[in-house]
């Protein structure tokens, strides 16, 4: 378990971490999610000891490591740009943490071979990092970090330098790896899809503060504020509320809308709007609308729903949302 208490980090007048407190349960895969510059890397590097805090403390498995150098924190760290030892072979890269600990040769060889098999780099032992693809290099870096049996594994945008396809493959693979190895893992990402896909807990950061912590479903379904709402997925503004586009229902007239809304037990405004465009995106259909107050918004419906209703451009509809309990800007949703 990692416990960060009142972590503070400033660069001159700029506050990179504003008294951040966070608990990361043992064995979890927690994502630190936030826009670029929100302090994710600073927080992760502070946990690793690569950054000194100006205030607060960090505990790993109960031990206060705030003033320990990274060497003594029992961590594994994976960097966005691999940080490979370019002059060493894949084997020597992975073995590094063990050889500097002067472990017996046979033990090192066995462990390295095991790890290379786990990360799927069997047979690449004698290559140099320059001879690997980006995805392979990152898997090598992961094996290197795991070789020293870290108490916690820290990953700073580990897939950020890879193309979309490899990125999606690797993060699912990381999830499976975590399910087998169970090491407490913290993953930094600015990609909400990645966080939702791979993590079992997400901490949303914004401007050096933590906005909300929770499991992916509760963050997506019950965001505590507009920032978390907009950062975790697409949003449309309906009247005075932010709603998910797929929660919007379109009816032909006001009366039908009102009765269906009441039947669903939903509250919120009924917004008269005109359909501007209907875009078919495979399984889903995106409907672009303009409300009668001029606000443009997007609704997302399933293909079946679209077929049934036959929305067409220029049509007048009344929109309401399945979930929109609180007006925009109001406090947390209960």
């Amino acid at each position, binding site marked *: 378990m990692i416990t960060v208490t009142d972590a503070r980090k400033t660069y001159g007048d700029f506050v990179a971490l504003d008294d951040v407190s966070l608990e990361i349960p043992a064995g979890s895969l927690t994502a630190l999610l936030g826009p670029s510059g929100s302090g994710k890397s600073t927080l992760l590097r502070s946990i690793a000891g690569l950054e000194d805090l100006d205030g607060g403390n960090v505990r790993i498995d109960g031990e206060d490591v705030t003033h320990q150098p990274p060497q003594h*924190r029992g961590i594994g760290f994976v960097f966005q*740009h691999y940080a490979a030892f370019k002059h060493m072979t894949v084997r020597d890269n992975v073995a590094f943490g063990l050889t500097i600990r002067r472990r017996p040769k046979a033990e090192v060889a066995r462990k390295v071979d*095991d790890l290379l098999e*786990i990360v799927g780099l069997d047979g690449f032992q004698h290559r140099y990092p320059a001879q690997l*693809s980006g995805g392979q290099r990152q898997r090598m*870096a992961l094996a290197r970090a795991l070789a020293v049996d870290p108490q916690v594994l820290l990953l700073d945008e580990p897939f950020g330098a890879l193309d979309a396809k490899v990125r999606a493959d690797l993060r699912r*693979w990381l999830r*499976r790896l975590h399910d087998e190895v169970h090491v407490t893992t913290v993953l930094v990402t600015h990609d909400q899809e990645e966080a939702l896909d791979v993590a079992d807990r997400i901490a949303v950061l914004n401007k050096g503060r933590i906005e909300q912590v929770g499991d992916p479903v509760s963050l997506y379904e019950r965001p505590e504020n507009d920032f978390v709402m907009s950062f975790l997925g697409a949003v449309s503004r309906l009247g005075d509320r932010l709603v998910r586009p797929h929660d919007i229902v379109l009816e032909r007239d006001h009366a039908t809308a009102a009765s269906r809304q009441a039947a669903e037990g939903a509250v919120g405004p009924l917004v008269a709007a005109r359909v501007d465009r209907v875009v078919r995106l495979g399984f889903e259909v995106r409907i672009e609308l303009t409300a009668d107050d001029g606000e443009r918004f997007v609704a997302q419906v399933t293909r079946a729903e679209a077929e049934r209703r036959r929305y067409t451009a220029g049509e007048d509809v009344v929109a309401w949302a399945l979930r929109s309990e609180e007006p925009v800007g109001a406090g947390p949703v209960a």
Partner: protein
Amino acid sequence: MSTTTQPVGAPPSPAPPSAAPARASSQGGRRRRGGPGGRALGLGVVGLWLSLMVLLPLAALTVRSFDDGLSGFWAAVTAPAALAALEVTLGVSVVVALVNAVMGTLVAWVLVRDEFPGQRVVNALIDLPFALPTIVASIVLLSLYGPNSPIGVHLNATRWGLGVALAFVTLPFVVRSVQPVLIELDREVEEAAASLGASNTTIFRRVVLPSLAPAVISGTGLAFARAVGEYGSVVLIGGNIPRETQVVSQYIQQQIEIDSPAAAAAVSVALLSVSFLTLFVLRVWATLSQRREASTA
């Protein structure tokens, strides 16, 4: 935690080794752009320039050195005074080059990694030995370490004096070749080593030094070559004592003064051969240690 030995499902399929990395293909594109005509012209100009500037004088020198035939060449090179000068020159130059390798790397390290007041000034000072006429260096060193030394250190006409003079003029080579590499070095690689438990000395020895090695080697080679051929800075402080502090350049000067240009040329060729061989070996070494990093399948 403990790592298990079972592979975790099928890892994402690795890119086939034959798929050339983007870097290699972009290089290929760059190479093609010149076109055959431009390339031939470029090669021609470079070839001509190098011939005029380097090969032709060297060839003339070599021809000259055999003016008195092979036996004359051999006699000139193996004359006791010539051998002694060669020995003094090479010996002191090797020591100076090695000192430079260590101190130059250290200076570069401090200039890049540390922050201290006056850093820019110090950084600019490094190049002064390049700009200063070497005879001025000799005068300065003589007044500092000569018979009237204000600090009580007398190096005049000793090999220490030679060494100090040569170290002065060769100072910039290692510093200036290591500095840019050090600036470009990825700090995260060192952080990765630290996270794996490596101490600062281990990080330097196992991670930083291998990356600096090509630059250190080539800087050291240049410093050595410069030291071997140096004349101006050792003229006054060296003392020109045959078999003691007389360096090859001074011996050659002496041969010219006693009107024996063939002997001067012969000793020059011998010195050049040693220097060339040293530089060649160092270059191959530096290239080999560099190639591993840059190599692509």
